[in-house]
């Protein structure tokens, strides 16, 4: 049995705007292994959530091309009834905003119980309740019997996110997709939720896709990192490589724009221009080239592909070899590379 849990091949997810289709996820290939946490980073509009929703088959009005192999079976474009056998059972999803991800008119117990019920019809009502309380305990809810009968609005944000997680892991899924699970939470709550995800991973050896824009979260959680820009993966490598030897200009720009420097009041790096909207994505050439205009256009590839620069480290386009920040002198930079 291979340890490859999920293999995505040339995935293209397109949305219809007016009369044309635009790819929000454009030719993405990646793998997730068992007991591995793959972080997908990028700014809003880079297609990372669209990718997650494609894997779960949650897009209702999008065309999906390419293959999504889950344990060897292609689940791309599977009819909803077949997909429902996977969703909630083999694949669980944690959503960004725990307030809106829960049904406001349903008690917590029923919402978690629903996941169990859908995939195990033989479980008795009582057995289900016992299991739900067990799950609530597992995700660190202090009074599970009491919370069972509560409504979402009676819980704090952190508690709600624990409930969402309990729902996602109810059937011990082998693949867990977490879409910005801590963005809506306070820092101290964020660290607790991240710790919980770590513990769950150690227990279950599930493969996890963690989608985030927060590089600190990536540094703390990920085994491997995929950086997305404009619907494509621009760099993918293990977490140490991404932080210690980032190559793609976008990865490097992102890392430089985070205020975490020890020296206060230093200048942060600003990426010129804006993330292009879906309709205005450049579909040819290096998609990042507009935002690094000082790099000579001849350094970009015509059709940028991922290059394996070292085992497991892929970078799109050749422009990375010639990239430097405007405030650095060009000569200095080139010495480092050569």
């Amino acid at each position, binding site marked *: 049995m291979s340890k490859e849990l999920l293999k995505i091949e040339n995935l293209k997810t397109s949305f219809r705007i007016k009369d044309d289709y635009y790819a929000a996820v454009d030719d993405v290939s990646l793998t997730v292994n068992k007991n591995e946490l793959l972080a997908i980073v990028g*700014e*809003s509009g880079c297609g990372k959530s669209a990718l997650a929703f494609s894997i779960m088959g949650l897009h209702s009005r999008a065309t999906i091309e390419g293959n999504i192999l889950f344990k060897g079976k292609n689940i791309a474009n599977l009819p909803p009834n077949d997909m429902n056998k996977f969703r909630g059972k083999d694949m669980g999803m944690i959503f960004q905003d725990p307030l809106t991800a829960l049904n406001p008119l349903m008690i917590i117990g029923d919402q978690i119980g629903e996941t169990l019920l859908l995939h195990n019809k033989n479980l008795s009502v009582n057995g289900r309740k016992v299991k739900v309380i067990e799950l609530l305990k597992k995700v660190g809810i202090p009074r599970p019997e009491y919370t069972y009968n509560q409504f979402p609005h009676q819980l704090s*944000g952190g508690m709600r996110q624990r409930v969402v997680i309990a729902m996602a892991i109810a059937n011990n899924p082998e693949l867990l997709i977490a879409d910005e699970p801590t963005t809506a939470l*306070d*820092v*101290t*709550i*964020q*660290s607790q939720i*991240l*710790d919980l995800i770590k513990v769950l991973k150690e227990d279950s050896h599930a493969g996890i896709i963690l989608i985030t*824009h*927060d*590089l*600190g*979260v990536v*540094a*703390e959680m*990920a085994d491997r990192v995929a950086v997305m820009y404009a619907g494509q993966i621009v760099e993918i490598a293990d*977490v*140490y490589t991404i*932080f210690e030897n980032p190559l793609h200009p976008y990865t490097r*720009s*992102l890392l430089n*724009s*985070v*205020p*975490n*420097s020890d020296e*206060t*009041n*230093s*200048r*942060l*790096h*600003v*990426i010129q221009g*804006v*993330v292009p909207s879906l309709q205005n994505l450049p579909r040819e050439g290096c998609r990042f080239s507009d935002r690094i205009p000082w790099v000579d256009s001849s350094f970009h590839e015509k059709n940028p592909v991922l290059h394996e620069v070292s085992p497991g480290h892929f970078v799109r386009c050749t422009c990375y070899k010639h990239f430097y920040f405007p405030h650095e002198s060009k000569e200095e930079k080139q010495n480092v590379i050569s």
Partner: protein
Amino acid sequence: MSFLEVTDLKVHFPVKGGLFGRTVGHIKAVDGVSLSIEKGKTYGLVGESGSGKTTTGRAIIGLNNITSGKITFEGRDITNIRKVSKDIRKDVQMIFQDPYSSLNTKKRVIDIVAEPIRNYEKLTKAEETKRVQELMEQVGLSPESIYKYPHEFSGGQRQRIGIARAIALKPKLIIADEPVSALDVSVQAQVLNFMQDIQKELGLTYLFISHDLGVIKHMCDRIGIMYKGRYVEEGSPADIFNNPQHIYTKRLVAAIPDINPRNRAEHIKFRQEVRSEYEKSYDKYFNSEGLAYMLQPVSESHLVALPEKG
């Protein structure tokens, strides 16, 4: 005398209850906050949701009613800012969190930015247009774009429009309430850099409210940490980040993710230590209601909410 001085500020919201909706208690959103800001500096107010940091900022500018306390600005009492003269009021402006909802989408940029000017000054149409165009240039947007609507701009640009409006009257103090929380990192960097630029250019003083310690550390000269309406610690960035004394501050600092993946194991261990210390010594640092004590000086610049000795 400091530039802005807040003394023992309290903002209590009544809680209605019972059969007739009588006031049965109060939520002490801000409960005895004192702070002072030096001219030209940036003061960071940090806390998690419900800590009272936003209420403090809104109370200073008069958006929340003050229960008690005193606020002076350049030595003049502005506790009732809505009643003081326009000259002083226009010196204090606010930047809001969400650049998507804080701008009126039905108005053109010129009307948004000129609104405070119209309230405080009498300018002819031509003068006004010229002024707005200058402001747009100042915040790095093209002067021709004044006839556009907010939705035609990106998030970072919209926040610049919010800033243009805030600096339109050449204020001296800007209260910035989570100005970059809704923005992507690269856009955030843009806005933060820009805020530092105009600070130097116009000699602005900031009260910078945020939950993001990374941003606060980057921007601020002095930092106050709030918890449940009270201060738990106040000091220079070095005091807060390298030598936190209050258990809550320690926990907050420990919760910031470390950007170096090599430190992961170490950081987790450290965080666990802090968490168990927090649980163990909670009673020592908080009173029976779970509130912080009064601030006590531990060094010249560093104040910590510790129980009174003896």
